[in-house]
């Protein structure tokens, strides 16, 4: 997929995220918008996974640790053909499979997530199984920066390095905001890179909205043989809609009619 095609997709995904959040009357708007470019590149460039091979033991795995940003995942999975996009009209509705967090009831979802600090340990175990079976699949997990204080992340970070899981790549959606305020003020986890590096990971920083940079970064995996890879993707919460960017209230804010129209206008004007 060309860079332009990827950019067009990111724009369409952003519109869909907002459309289905508005329809559902709920959702994690800011984080879905900050992580969507990462998901776009993963699913449309990097991951060897699609509806055609989802049951294959050799597929690449994506586990979304920051499960609350499920809207980003669902719009990408729909676009990949895992399920009809119209299904998302039922998002968070009574008896719908499409709940406000990833669930395996939805085709394409690897693990049920939502509680924070769970994705990395599961990804470590999955990557370990790949090594045991000498398979070539890779395991990706997306973490929010706000979930880093969960101790289970650091337990899993130790294990990943100890078992030399170079088939594992964790990506941090580093948008620097969480529900209470700036992550640096809530519980400062900086320097994230030095911490992970000291645990034995190879850490690479990238602009999480630069599709070319993301593509090239994931193309370089593993960053080093015998070591797990961490990509710190610097992102902007609410990215793509001017009045949502870096504004805390959009963590799980739902646009009203006017805001939605304004956001869609902005996004339409930004189509490349």
């Amino acid at each position: 997929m060309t860079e332009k095609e990827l950019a067009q997709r990111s724009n369409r995904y952003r519109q869909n995220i907002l459309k289905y959040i508005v329809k559902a009357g709920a959702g994690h708007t800011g984080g879905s918008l900050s992580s969507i470019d990462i998901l776009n590149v993963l699913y449309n460039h990097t991951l060897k996974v699609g509806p055609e091979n989802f049951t294959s033991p050799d597929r690449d795995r994506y586990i979304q640790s920051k499960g609350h940003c499920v809207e980003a995942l669902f719009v990408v999975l729909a676009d990949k053909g895992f399920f009809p996009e119209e299904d998302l009209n039922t998002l968070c509705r009574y008896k719908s499979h499409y709940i406000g967090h990833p669930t395996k009831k939805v085709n394409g979802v690897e693990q049920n997530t939502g509680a924070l600090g769970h994705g990395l340990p599961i990804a470590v175990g999955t990557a370990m199984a790949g090594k045991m079976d000498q398979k070539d699949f890779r395991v990706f997990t997306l973490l929010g920066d706000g979930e880093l204080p969960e101790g289970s992340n650091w337990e899993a970070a130790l294990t990943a390095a100890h078992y030399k899981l170079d088939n594992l790549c964790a990506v941090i959606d580093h948008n620097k905001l969480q529900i209470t305020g700036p992550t640096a003020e809530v519980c400062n986890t900086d320097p994230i890179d030095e911490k992970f590096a000291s645990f034995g990971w190879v850490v690479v920083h990238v602009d999480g909205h630069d599709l070319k940079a993301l593509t090239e970064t994931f193309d370089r995996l593993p960053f080093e043989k015998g070591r797990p890879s961490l990509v710190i993707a610097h992102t902007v919460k609410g990215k793509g809609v001017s009045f949502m960017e870096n504004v805390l209230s959009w963590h799980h804010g739902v646009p009203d009619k006017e805001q939605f129209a304004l956001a869609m206008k902005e996004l339409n004007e930004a189509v490349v």
Partner: protein
Amino acid sequence: MASIVVESKPGAKPNLEVFSATLQELAATDRDIIVVTSDSRGSGKLVPFGKKYPAQIVEIGIAEQNLVGVSAGLASAGKKTFAVSPACFLTARALEQIKNDVAYSDNPVKLIGISAGVSYGALGTTHHSLHDFAALRAINNLIVVAPADNFETAEAIRQAAASRHPIYLRFGKKNMPLLKEDESEGFQFGKGRVVAKGRDLAFIATGETVYPALEAARQLRSVHGIESTVISMHTIKPLDTALLQETAAGTGAIITVEEHSINGGLGEACASYLLQNGYRKPFRIVGIPDEYTVTGSQNEIFQHYGISKDGLTDIALQLLGREGARPGRGGGA
């Protein structure tokens, strides 16, 4: 009705050792059998397993949340994963991982709670698991099992390995005599084993408390002429309600026995079913009361709370309104 209480064979092994031996036997022909430990291979009697099958044991270190999360990942990729850790830590520290990563995601991890209940004796509350049945009963998609003897343990491990769903198994480390000579009836999750039959009273026990219940039944018969049914209700969830119904219909009183808090365990599971299904005869839950356990060995703690031949005999006599019960015996409820 004639009693068919059989004599048990003494001197059997700890269920923990049977677990380890069975796992080795399975691993010999199945390289997908994976044991995951949290610095617990020694206490889990898994050192020989690790030596024999080094590629099939994963050491996590002391990090139970990670133990369960990693196990979920392994199981999701087809590994027949046994996550082994002391029951106290496994089911408290890693409860959210059990709930979400194992049960909710339906990753077929076999959660093995070793040195369960008050097996750690005088090490105290931090090391006791008297909450695990209660906590895990409330989690959907998890089979909860406490095998009583070596036969049940070996069968439970074999069947757990073959299962594609999450299972929690817990046992202790003391020698457990076989409950029955004849094992032809087999073992199946969710189907209680009738160890003895009698019309006056029924003991419904689980795990390492089945044997003292059986001893009490023998004493009640030989000394007091009271005939007792004894059931090893190894599966706490799903509960064998058919057997419970049948037992309730044919007995004069029911005593449940468990190495667990009297809150939320086997007893309350039975009480809930029985009350809602017409049972109105005497009923008593014997377990560890809602207090910090008295200091002592597992045996001493059992004795203290009436989970013993004499303690259960006295509780039975009290419940049936029979003379001969010694005052002050039989804690529990």
